[in-house]
């Protein structure tokens, strides 16, 4: 929103030395954000008035002339092509350094000394559109004629044209809770409170007739229209608005139309109260404020047709809707140059209703922007008086036909709040003097009744309509005007108890350290969604998924139940430029479980991808899961299968189950079909999924110390040739059974398959460690165990190598 400082000054006496930027900064800190300050004179820097002393033809160009132009103390030579240029004419001269827009088009250009067709030119005699002015009567090859004003040559143009205003641009978002700040009057009140300048109440002097023709108004829905004021003025001449009004409207970002429409916009910009004017001859019977009837239509001022819904409030005459209340007027009752009698409307409409209607119809106007903030229901009457004053001023023949029609039904009793003064100070954190608090509140138009503990504060109607309704709202008024910058930074004293521990969060960070810093994985973050294509690519079904009602793209339609699809996409992308990948993500899955709230579990999932055909990634992934289980003391049983994991290889897979059968982790090679779907055929891809939420429940106590062995151990190397389909676990089991007391560990250190041992065989080599707690083992004992191991392995069809 654009706010004119000169307009503000209509209502507040600002100290003369007030700098606009400083005022803007103060408003930002205490009221609402001012995003910028525009100095109007800045556009007219180095542009002065001049008078053409003599005019001669240009020797080298037919359409150009050489004008000796007085610009005050000096006279300069300027080459100019203006068709209307005459000797003695008063003109606008852009001196060297001025910024102009050539022929009113393109970017601003800085004037430099130039030679035009061989003749020197010290600046430019400007057309209106070249210096941001607007003169519709000026011909396309004319320059601006200031002769009517007869200005002293050398006068800065800004001064002559009264371009001495500063425009403050407010960030509208920061005004959403302040209905009172959507007009200059309200901002002026705020400026007065901040600067200490005197605020002048608006009291337009208009004599309203006590009798005569008044608007016939019927309000059918008082909830949606708590107040409706109407007034008839006749003898109107619709024409251009005077320059001062156009100037103010333009400066604050409004277009200009005609005097009547401009007046309604002027009132809205001044007081924040939207108004509307109807051409009386198009209003049949009188005004009815009602909700739309089924099937009713309206063509709004912008020429668009709208179907109205039954919950929308309209302003109608006795036949048809003539405006969408608070949103936009109808074309059928628009003011035009033939209008002679107008009905002025100043009303208060329900904010939510206006907002809803505006959203449904897709119409956003300055009026909606204000009504949706909950305007002060006392404002329409003031606005109507001010509008009448302006109409009479602009149309000397105009006459008010009768009294203002004022239909109202709202709580007129002012809001009185209690203010616990001690508590207010304790919330602010500063012991502000009572006197100062009182002064602040009064400056903002609150009435204050002080008491030792609980004050009584009466809220002005322009604040109680929305943003000041509870005691804490008063605290805000006090602290913002007192100054947030006057609040010191203090640390709260520490509580006497340690904060509640969030073990899960803590462990998550430890998991990251394990995976990233010990095991060489990088951590990815992915979105919580995927799409149907991902489901298909991962051979998954839609069952159990939660779907979004509104989504932004087809690949973000379902909430993930597993992190794998997105990790596979990461894999596909990363392998375009990296030879291999170790990547993980810690994130939530969301599952439909037949209750209102879905099940959210935290998962740790990762990928190991290498070029070529190898099962190594599987075993590396297994190592990762085991490192995790070991670090957090989780004991789990292995099972050679995975459930509900369609994207897993059906054989190359493994689960870790808790005692109660709950799956804590899965490791698997990617399903060959899925591998194809993600263009990963040339890679060997292993994945792991750890259910972090579940696994935590099975953590056991910290490891207990076990005495270090005092007697030496003996190591046996055993290599066995065995049918290829014998599992490692079977062999280890057979070895272990040889002597469960003495065997301390069995480590597989080599697997060999090759033609020389036959395609159905493999050689497995183990290092077996024997040790007794109470003695040094003898050779005899060792041999006994060894023989037993041999026997057990041979029983499995094994052939001991090098026996």
């Amino acid at each position: 929103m654009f706010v004119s400082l000169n307009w503000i000054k209509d209502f507040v006496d600002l100290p003369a030395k007030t700098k606009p930027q400083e005022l803007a900064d103060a408003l930002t800190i205490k009221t609402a954000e001012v995003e910028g300050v525009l100095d109007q004179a800045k556009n007219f820097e180095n542009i002065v008035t001049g008078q053409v002393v003599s005019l001669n033809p240009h020797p080298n160009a037919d359409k150009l002339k050489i004008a000796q132009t007085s610009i005050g103390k000096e006279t300069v030579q300027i080459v100019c092509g203006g068709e209307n240029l005459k000797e003695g004419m008063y003109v606008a001269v852009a001196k060297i350094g001025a910024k102009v827009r050539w022929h009113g088009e393109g970017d601003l250009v800085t004037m430099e000394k130039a030679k035009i067709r061989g003749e020197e030119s010290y600046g430019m005699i400007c057309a209106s559109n070249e210096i941001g002015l607007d003169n519709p009567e000026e011909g396309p090859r004319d320059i601006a004629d200031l002769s009517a004003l007869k200005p002293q040559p050398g006068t800065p143009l800004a001064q002559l044209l009264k371009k001495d205003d500063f425009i403050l641009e407010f960030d509208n978002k920061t005004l959403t809770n302040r209905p009172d700040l959507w007009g200059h009057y309200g901002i002026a009140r705020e400026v007065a409170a901040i600067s200490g300048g005197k605020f002048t109440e608006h009291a337009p002097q208009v004599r309203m007739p006590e009798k005569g023709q008044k608007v016939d108004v019927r309000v059918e829905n008082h909830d949606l229209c708590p107040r409706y004021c109407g007034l008839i003025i006749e003898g109107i001449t619709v024409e251009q608005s005077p320059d001062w009004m156009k100037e103010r409207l333009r400066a604050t970002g409004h277009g200009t139309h005609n005097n009547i429409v401009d007046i309604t916009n002027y009132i809205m910009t001044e007081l924040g109260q939207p108004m509307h004017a109807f051409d009386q001859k198009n209003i049949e019977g009188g005004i009815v404020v009602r909700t739309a009837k089924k099937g009713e239509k309206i063509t709004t001022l912008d020429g668009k047709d709208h179907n109205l819904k039954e919950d929308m409030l309209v302003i109608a005459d006795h036949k048809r809707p003539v405006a969408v209340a608070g949103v936009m007027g109808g074309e059928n009752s628009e003011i035009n140059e033939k209008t002679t009698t107008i009905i002025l409307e100043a009303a208060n409409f329900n904010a939510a209703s206006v907002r809803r209607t505006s959203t449904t119809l897709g119409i956003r106007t300055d009026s909606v922007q204000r009504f949706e903030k909950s305007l002060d229901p006392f404002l329409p009457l003031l606005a109507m008086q001010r509008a009448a004053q302006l109409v009479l001023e602009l149309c000397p023949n105009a006459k008010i036909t009768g009294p203002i029609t004022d239909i109202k039904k709202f709580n007129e009793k002012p809001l009185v709040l209690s203010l616990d003064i001690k508590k207010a100070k304790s919330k602010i954190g500063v012991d502000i003097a009572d006197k100062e608090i009182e002064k602040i509140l009064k400056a903002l138009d609150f009435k204050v009744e002080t008491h030792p503990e609980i004050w009584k504060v009466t809220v002005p109607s322009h604040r109680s309509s929305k943003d000041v309704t509870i005691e804490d709202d008063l605290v805000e008024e006090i602290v913002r005007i007192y100054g947030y910058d006057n609040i010191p930074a203090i640390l709260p004293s520490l509580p006497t108890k340690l904060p509640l521990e969030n073990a899960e969060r803590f462990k998550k960070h430890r998991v990251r350290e394990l995976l990233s810093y010990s095991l060489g994985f990088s951590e990815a973050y992915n979105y919580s969604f995927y799409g149907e294509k991902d489901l298909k690519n991962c051979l998954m079904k839609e069952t159990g998924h939660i779907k979004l009602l509104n989504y932004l793209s087809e690949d973000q339609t379902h909430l993930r139940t597993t992190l794998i699809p997105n990790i596979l996409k990461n894999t596909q992308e990363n392998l375009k430029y990296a030879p291999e990948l170790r990547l993980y993500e810690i994130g939530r899955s969301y599952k439909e479980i037949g209750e209102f709230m879905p099940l959210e579990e935290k998962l740790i999932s990762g990928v190991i991808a290498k070029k070529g055909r190898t099962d190594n990634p599987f075993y590396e992934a297994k190592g990762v899961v085991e490192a995790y289980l070991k670090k957090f003391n989780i004991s789990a049983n292995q099972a050679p299968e995975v459930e509900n994991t369609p994207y897993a290889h059906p054989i190359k897979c493994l689960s870790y189950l808790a005692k109660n059968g709950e799956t804590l982790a899965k490791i698997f090679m990617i399903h060959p079909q899925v591998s194809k779907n993600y263009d990963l055929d040339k890679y060997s891809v292993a994945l792991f999924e750890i259910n972090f939420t579940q696994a935590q429940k099975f953590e056991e106590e910290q490891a207990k110390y076990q005495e270090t062995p005092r007697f030496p151990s003996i190591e046996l190397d055993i290599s066995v040739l065995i049918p290829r389909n014998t599992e490692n676990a079977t062999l280890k089991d057979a070895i272990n059974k040889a002597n469960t007391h003495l065997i301390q560990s069995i480590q597989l250190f080599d697997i060999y398959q090759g033609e020389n041992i036959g395609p159905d065989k493999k050689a497995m080599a183990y290092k077996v460690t024997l040790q007794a707690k109470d003695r040094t083992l003898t050779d005899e004992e060792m041999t006994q165990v060894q023989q037993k191991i041999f026997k057990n392995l041979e029983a499995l069809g094994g052939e001991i190598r090098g026996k």
Partner: protein
Amino acid sequence: MKDKLKKLEATALPAIDKAKTPQQLQELSVKYLGRKGELTAILRTLKDLPADKKPEAGQLSNKTKQALEAAFSKKEQELSTAAVDQELKKDFFDTTLPGKTPPQGHIHPLSQLQEEIEQIFSKMGFAIMDGPEVEAEYYNFEGLNIPKDHPARDMQDTFFIDKEDHKKFGRLVLRTHTSPVQVRTMEKYGAPLRIIVPGRTFRYEATDASHDTTFYQVEGLLIDKDISLAHLKGVMAEMLGAVFGKPVTVRFRPGYFPFVEPGLEVDFSCLLCDGKGCKVCKGLGWVEFMGAGMVHENVLKAGGIDSKEYQGWAFGFGLTRLAMMRHKITDIRLLSNGDTRFINQF
């Protein structure tokens, strides 16, 4: 005998000193101290001396033996040191070859920052809380004093879940902020309360370099009997100072959020220009950072806390934004595309 010993010493000691190699020294050792060596030969004659001369002769010959042995030992040391020195001089070693590190992974920058923030707040006595990401409308809006028709609901474009409404809790949404955890935590633990909630949040809005559907926020809540805005300023200055590693000034401006009153916009002094105004802060000297304020009485009420007895503040800032500022990340989408060329820079 005395003379013999003297003579031996006089020839042996210089000879030892002149030895150039360990072999020469070995030969000399054999020559003098070996079984057939010269000194040994002299010593053998000891037993033939008369008994009264034996002690003196014994002493003398021992002295000579010790002198020779000391000389050998010293020379041996000398030669050994020289040999090592000689060997070292020949050696070549390239310290400029690259170092070898075991494969290193990387923790995502958001995780790193999140842990830092958690630790900073833990030190100030804050507990870390969690809440559901798929949230009920009640906790995301109504419980936070944002009723149905409230314009603030527009500002928080919301993802809705395709599921039937709940009579009490309304529709299911993806939480648009971490604030719903405020009411949930109040309900569960009551007052006093001192928590932060770092977490994933969602907005239904078109993505570009600075907007994404998914981002991270940190919610803070401090409720006790005498908590003031001055404490909020203190805690924020402390936190930002710790994150950026230098003192940071915090500025409050009026702001409007339905769940706080008074409501604040919190800025911090631009770290690039120290508040003088630069491109990053758009010449303002301040960087907009977060919304905050004193918890609205309706929110306390929704959480079952008596606003007559307890008061406090809440804040919510963008962890994602802070990470982007800290690392000068220019596109928010880099944070969630799993590209290791990005992740591995941190």
